[in-house]
């Protein structure tokens, strides 16, 4: 009933006394938190900067696939991660964000939203990803007037209403399950086939109030004051029609938050940061982990593992550099 995520940034941390670090980690999701844990244990002078702690875990109702935990709420997992990191006294600066990274000679400088500048020998970017938009007419206009990207936040507004879920992956399937407690009817509209886990699809097939249209594309969102429905194209018959609905939950995957390094770090076509086997980007000393890296599967356990790898690689990198006399 209480989701305490209050950060005790009021307590003083190393952030108050130093502006020169071995490693600064950007991002408080699974990748960033695990990187912090590993780096602190190695004895690096490490700090973590995050807009919020938990990242996308907060938008996740239940996590069913993190080894060792059978069915856990996303926020519970996030709190456990944070408690573990806090137990090691990792300095955390939350509620601020990094606005710019500038590679300098043997250092990186980081500009923060509170006006401060910090310097670090190495950086791990673990900024994750944000919801992808459909980019169709009406989506923006009816955003928060029916169109939503956060099922946990907005499901209660659709009690006894008809809603559409757009998408075919795990997050779309989870949205259907979450909404089934509230909505009168749910229509899934997806432009290709399901990609979600069979386990989730089995659960959906047991729900009495779900209709599924695959190979169907949403063309626009229509309405007046509030959204009234969507026009869709049936790809098999090439016919279009209107589906009346009060809500549209868009769950079509995510786009990486790589803006901070766009222009000076190699990105792939999806704007993900290209990393090597040591999680290092095209710029020596700049590492990336989690959803923002170019690894193909966006999962908590993979993000956490990449965070650990990156922290260990940073340790090696710094040791090597020190030998070469920094």
């Amino acid at each position, binding site marked *: 009933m209480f989701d305490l995520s209050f950060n005790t940034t009021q307590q003083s941390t190393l952030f108050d006394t130093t502006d020169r670090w071995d490693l600064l980690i950007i991002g408080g999701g699974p990748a960033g938190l695990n990187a912090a844990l590993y780096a602190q244990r190695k004895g690096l002078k490490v700090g973590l900067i995050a807009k919020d702690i938990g990242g996308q875990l*907060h938008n996740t109702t239940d996590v069913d696939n993190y080894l060792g935990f059978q069915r856990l709420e996303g926020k519970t997992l996030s709190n456990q991660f944070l408690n573990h990191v806090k137990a090691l006294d990792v300095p955390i600066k939350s509620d601020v964000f990094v606005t710019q990274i500038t590679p300098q000679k043997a250092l990186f400088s980081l500009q923060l939203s509170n006006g401060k500048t910090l310097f670090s020998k190495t950086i791990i970017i673990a900024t994750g990803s944000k919801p992808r938009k459909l980019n169709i007419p009406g989506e923006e206009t009816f955003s928060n007037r029916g169109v939503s990207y956060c099922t946990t936040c907005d499901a209660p507004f659709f009690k006894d209403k008809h809603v559409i879920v757009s998408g075919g992956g795990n997050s779309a399937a989870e949205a259907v399950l979450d909404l089934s407690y509230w909505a009168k009817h749910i229509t899934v509209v997806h432009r290709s086939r399901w990609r979600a886990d069979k386990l989730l699809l089995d659960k959906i097939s047991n729900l009495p109030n779900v209709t599924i249209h695959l190979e169907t594309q949403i063309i626009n969102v229509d309405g007046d004051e509030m959204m009234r429905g969507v026009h869709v194209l049936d790809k098999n018959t090439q016919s279009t029609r209107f589906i009346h609905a009060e809500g549209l939950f868009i769950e079509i995957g995510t786009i990486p938050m790589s803006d901070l390094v766009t222009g000076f770090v190699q990105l792939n076509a999806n704007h993900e940061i290209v990393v090597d086997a040591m999680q290092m980007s095209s710029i020596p000393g700049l590492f990336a982990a989690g959803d923002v890296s170019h690894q193909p599967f966006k999962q908590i356990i993979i993000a956490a593992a990449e965070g650990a790898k990156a922290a260990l690689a940073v340790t090696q990198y710094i040791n090597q550099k020190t030998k070469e006399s920094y």
Partner: protein
Amino acid sequence: MAKLFNDDVRTQITEILAQTKNPIQLVLFTKEGVCPTCQETQQLLEEVCETNEKLTLSVKSIETDKALADTYGVTMTPSFVILDSKGVYKGVKFNGIPAGHEINSLISALLEMSGLTIHYQEQVLNRINSIEKPINIKVFVTLSCPHCAGAVQNAHRLAMLNPNIEAEMIEAQTFQELSTKHNVSGVPKIVINDQHELVGNQPIEAFLEKIERI
């Protein structure tokens, strides 16, 4: 009656609220008869105040204490305001129970009202200080919304920093009529002076841009 806070939550809240600086007062307005979440809100605030002696709660009736309710602009129940150490109303109001993620908004408002420094850049503080029009900020939330507390905190800080600004959290499910009136179907939704809208957890600069254009 069963406690709302389990031991774990109570311990954590006690630890955080240990930073409370000056004594402050909460004034809660409830109503006899039908008042969904009135009783729970009262119990929640009582349990919060039990964790720290600098926090006191006074419970009023919106009917019999109408004059007082009017001075704080309280029109719905449950609704509460947090007064500063001198007993002054600075425009920090909660409508509905601050449970779920909103417990974070409550804690933050208590600590900052008690005198903990609000960390904004100087230029942001200057912009806040120069607002001279009366501004009312409504932040609609659901208790399961992880981004909403951030928006509520920013709004409340604006109120604490400038006497012309009042900021209220509105728990959308308890106050459905008001939510429907403002077409709320996604949260956080921020409504300024009942007509200018902001959607999502916006940085403080976005609040200021909107307010400065009014």
